[in-house]
């Protein structure tokens, strides 16, 4: 047993982190956010060169064929730098769907394109978690009707993968007749979410789809969102510490006041143990299948709570500056906010965890 990252994993994470630090500084993030560009050309090209989109795509299809822990530590870096690029849908949930449920032809067609970064895939499974009044998708004679909300990586998608009411998965072309597609602007302007409305839309089923595969997509997505929050939270702590070390009031840096020191220490004590939790959840996806769903719920709900605490506290340390667009701290604050709600808020996820543990009906 070895509970830690391998040398390769460290190199991978450092590489992605360094790349984002250099290529996705706040000005770039702001530029992308202001122009609603969720696949900014230069940044996405670099991500492709690093092989990130194919992290989970099997090597046979041109990907890196790595595991969910690898994906999680990359997603941590994405959160750390509030990177405005597709990942959770395109590079994590879609490859699961295609690999586990796709026909050979579908795999041959899409997986290499995903691996190379040539294809963006929007993923719509939100209704499998909790159905809202008028949302949800029904398949009838191979045609889809209904509404899919909070489709992840919606922007510029080359194809959508959508789960219907019966846990079948469908590939839908963005220009399919009868499909109307709307952007959903969220508080977080660094990630793309959209809405699809289907009116008897032609779709191509993934033949092997079933409830377990949809569940696995959701588990993986949740772990990624937890990792995203971990990275974003870590950065918010670092920013608070830097700000506290620079900002002066009453003739001293505010970081010399015990009240501020302790706020920073509390954030650290709260977030640090989360790292291992996320790692284990990612690892369990590949190696401890019995634990995977429960750990995904645990990681998602716990990081949601700790992330909220860190987001608030770092903002508090920043005083008024934390609320300005100028400093941009709000990108992290909102990223953590959207992480919390996508693929099930903590209340929903805790209920599922209770069911998995046999505690709730």
């Amino acid at each position, binding site marked *: 047993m070895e509970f830690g990252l391998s040398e390769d994993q460290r190199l991978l994470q450092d590489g992605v982190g360094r790349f984002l630090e250099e290529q996705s500084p706040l000005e770039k993030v702001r530029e992308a956010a202001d122009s609603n560009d969720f696949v900014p050309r230069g940044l996405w090209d670099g991500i492709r060169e690093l092989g990130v989109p194919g992290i989970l795509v099997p090597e046979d299809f041109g990907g890196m064929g790595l595991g969910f822990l690898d994906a999680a530590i990359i997603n941590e870096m994405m959160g750390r730098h509030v990177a405005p690029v597709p990942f959770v849908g395109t590079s994590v949930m879609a490859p699961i769907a295609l690999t586990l449920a796709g026909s050979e032809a579908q795999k041959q067609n899409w997986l290499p394109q995903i691996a190379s970064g040539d294809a963006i895939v929007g993923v719509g499974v*939100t209704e499998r*978690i*909790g159905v*809202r*009044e008028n949302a949800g998708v029904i398949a009838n004679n191979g045609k889809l009707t209904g509404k899919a*909300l*909070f489709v992840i990586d919606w922007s510029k998608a080359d194809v959508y993968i959508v789960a219907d009411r019966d846990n079948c998965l469908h590939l839908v072309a963005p220009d399919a007749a009868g499909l109307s597609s709307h952007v*959903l*602007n*969220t*508080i*977080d*302007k660094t990630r793309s*979410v959209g*809405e699809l409305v289907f009116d008897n839309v032609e779709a191509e089923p993934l033949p092997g789809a079933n409830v377990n595969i949809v569940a696995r997509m959701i588990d993986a997505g949740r772990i990624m969102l937890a990792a995203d929050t971990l990275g974003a939270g870590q950065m918010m702590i670092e920013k608070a510490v830097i700000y506290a070390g620079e900002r*002066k*009031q*009453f*003739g001293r840096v*505010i970081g010399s006041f015990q*009240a*501020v020191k302790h706020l920073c220490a509390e954030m650290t004590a709260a977030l640090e143990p989360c790292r291992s939790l996320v790692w284990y959840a990612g690892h369990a996806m590949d190696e401890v299948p019995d634990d995977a769903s429960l750990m995904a719920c645990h990681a998602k709900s716990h990081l949601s709570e700790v992330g909220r605490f860190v987001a*608030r506290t770092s*903002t*508090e340390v920043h*005083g*008024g500056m*934390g*609320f*300005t*667009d*100028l400093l941009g701290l*709000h990108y992290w*604050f*909102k990223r953590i*906010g*959207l992480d919390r*709600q*996508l693929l099930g*808020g903590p*209340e*929903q996820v805790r*209920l599922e965890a209770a069911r998995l543990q046999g505690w709730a009906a």
Partner: protein
Amino acid sequence: MDIELAKEDEAFRAEVRKFIAENLTRELSDKITVGASAERSVLRGWQKFLHKRGWIAVNWPTEYGGTGWTAMQKFIFNEEMALANAPRLSPFGLSMVGPVIYTFGNEDQKKQHLSGILSGDTAWCQGYSEPGSGSDLASLKTKAVRVGDDYIVNGQKIWTSYAHEADWIFCLVRTDETVKQQAGITFLLIDMKTPGIEVKPIISIDGLHHLNEVFFTDVKVPVTNRIGEENKGWTYAKFLLVNERTGIAGVPESKRSIVRIKELARKERLGDGGALVDDPAFRHKLSEIEIKLMGLEFTNLRILADAAAGPSSSTLKIVGTEVQQSLAELAVEAVAFYAQPFQKEQLLGTSNESPVGPDYGVATASAYNFGRAASIYGGSNEIQRNVIAKAVLGL
């Protein structure tokens, strides 16, 4: 203790309700219901109604156009307005500088300013914080040098809410750098149209423009615009801050939020189809906040009965903003997914399209996000704890 309302108070409550029923348009109250900011002109319209009725300056003495109400009448009035979703009037003139002017200003100043504040024709903003002077307000550096009958003001203010819509700003400026910080501050009233004033927007976390930076370059302010004595400004400033903190507790607004969250929790469905309000964990949280708010409300009533026996304004500010922030948080939990869409037009009330998700979801996340500022402004809650430790506990 006697919590029965007197007959005349009951009558007064009926009168307030009647006024609201007759004057508060559905359009206006709906905007407040979804938490959207009403446009400035609409707000002024509402202020006119109140002004006409003589109900504008709740806390002012009658001689200056105030209502002359008893503490209980004020309480009733504020509660009814909040529960009816009436717009909250801008506090800068009515709650902040107005009382400073009629308490410390001279007759000319009263004549010049009070009526505009009451009618809403003059909009004010607050020039207190500076980039280097937030919690440590007294360290402010904006400088005023006396030249003949004027002060020449140079410097910068920040976090100035609605400076871009204001006609006047009340400002703390440094007039003596050689003495203890607090002893070298002067309180000036400055016409925003004076040459040399520049206002730059600060876009805040909710993506909207409430806040500003205000720059002063050789701005000429007549000495007659000075409140009270030179270098005594800190006294007037503190008088205003205590008023501000008490208002910040925001009990009526939080009561309105509770009503709203309860409505919303009856509509929202859980994963299993039950109403959110039936979820014990949610109910427990809501109930805890409601009880805390109840304590705060009764405490306000207690202060009405005997101000001396009440807790400090710092306690009210801390507890009040904690309640506000917990309610904002609970609203986000309640709306879940639908708290996430950011719909600026719906938020500003400038769109006729229906929003994504329920309409009560529109402003939820923005309110939560911007609401985090409640523990910062008016003196951060950390500073309030310092104040309690020092002033109340003697530590």
